[in-house]
């Protein structure tokens, strides 16, 4: 009896996590460069009460055994790095990546990686993210700049009013063997881990690194319909598992009433 109670409780906990992950996706539906997550589940171990293949009293082999499962557990929360939709902003420092690459930024001395390319200028003309983290390699826009042009293959050029180049640099993009293994640190930033592998530097436009689109931002890749369906299935699964707990409880009560 207690077995079904705990089994159903594991189901409720797993679905709670499912809803948590879905809520975070919905909360970030309009976050630039956000990548949705998905919780994955696996069944727990099985208690074998009768071994298949054992002989019964008559000497016959039992064809299949008797196994009762112990419930479910979340096994992973998987980030999906599919590309979000592009929004045209027209702002010269808004950069979207059409491909698998990431920008490298300097977060207090460590390199972090982001796809949210909404860059700004500091009062000294340095290109930074909205949180003030400098784009790598660092690029300072000179005082007299009228125009900033970023080409598809990552060349950033600052021009004056006569179209003369004042400063220029190449923005590299970085890719990972296993992007879902990256560690999210919030603020649209990712850190490399053992699981993701080390960043691989690439030139925009080569292989699958991606090209840079100036004046565009990549929206989140959250699909509202999919998340809504997951909310519904998660909530219903939560409810039916609570029903299993209620049933176990009532059966326990029935057993208790045996002795009056």
């Amino acid at each position: 009896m207690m077995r079904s109670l705990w089994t159903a409780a594991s189901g409720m906990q797993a679905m709670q996590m499912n809803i948590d992950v879905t809520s975070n996706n919905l909360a970030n539906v309009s976050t630039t460069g956000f990548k949705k997550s998905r919780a994955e589940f696996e069944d727990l171990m099985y208690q074998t009460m009768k071994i298949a293949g054992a002989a019964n009293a008559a000497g016959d082999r039992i064809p299949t055994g008797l196994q009762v499962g112990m419930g479910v557990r979340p096994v992973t929360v998987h980030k999906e790095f599919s590309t979000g939709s592009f929004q045209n902003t027209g702002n010269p420092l808004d950069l979207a990546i059409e491909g698998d690459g990431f920008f490298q930024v300097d977060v207090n001395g460590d390199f972090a990686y982001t796809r949210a390319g909404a860059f700004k200028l500091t009062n000294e003309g340095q290109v930074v993210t909205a949180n003030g983290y400098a784009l790598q390699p660092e690029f300072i826009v000179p005082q007299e700049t009228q125009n900033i042009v970023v080409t598809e293959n990552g060349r950033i050029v600052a021009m004056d009013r006569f179209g003369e180049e004042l400063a220029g640099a190449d923005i590299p993009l970085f890719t990972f063997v296993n992007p879902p293994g990256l560690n999210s640190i919030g603020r649209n930033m990712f850190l490399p881990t053992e699981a993701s592998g080390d960043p691989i530097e690439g030139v925009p436009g080569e292989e699958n690194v991606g090209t840079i689109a100036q004046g565009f931002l990549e929206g989140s890749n959250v699909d509202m319909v999919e998340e809504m369906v997951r909310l519904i299935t998660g909530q219903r699964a939560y409810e039916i598992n609570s029903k299993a707990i209620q049933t176990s409880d009532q059966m326990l009560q029935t057993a208790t009433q045996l002795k009056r």
Partner: protein
Amino acid sequence: MQTSMYNALFGALTQEHRLANTANNLANVNTTGYKRETMAFRDVFIRFGHGMLDPISAINEKSLLPVPDELAQNRIALTHIDFAQGSAKETGNPLDAAIEGDGFFKVRTLEGDFYTRNGNFRLTPDGELVTNQGFPVLVDGGPVNLEPNARIVIGPDGAIQANGEPVGNFDLVTFDNPQVLEKLGQNMFRLRAGVEAAELPADNATVVQGYLEQANVEVVSEMVSMIEAHRSFEAYQKVMHTAQEADQKVIREVASPR
């Protein structure tokens, strides 16, 4: 009296197992590649002791004992895994694959090769194709490494292409009778100990890229089974209670001195 008490007890225990099984199916309603389990019951015959004797006594040729009927008590006999196809859910992830039809992916673990229907794969930092738990999935009989950032295309026959270059074929296997498999948790199946069964190539299996197979748990039938288990449990409790009351009556009234 004892017999009815024990019959009801076995019945109630059976319902308890049934509920544990239903609860496990319901807990895994959102588990990728989960296959529901059903329970089969059989009765166990109990014979009255006097059925073994000749109930005719020589006094007046009449049977002194009731006719030796056989009583049945139900016990769970076995669990049966229902390998019916679950529905497919689109994820759009190129490393997700669902199998339509009979077949399993092969997974290499430290304890041997196991089978799974969960096609939610990923890459390790070295580019090896692994399951959620990090076990390599077998392609052409061994683990496979894919180039980083390659465009992966999985064909309906399980052929993998990276950037248009063929890499290999998923080892898709099936069995004449899938009931030779048992579950070991982590969405995996293995051959039961002591069972000889040949792996056959899964010819009628189709691999669909970008989809995952959902659990094949039918919520409604599981709820019905839960209600059934619950109510039969109550009925058995009533039987036990009645048996108990009859016993009490015998002790109080029959045994009381007149």
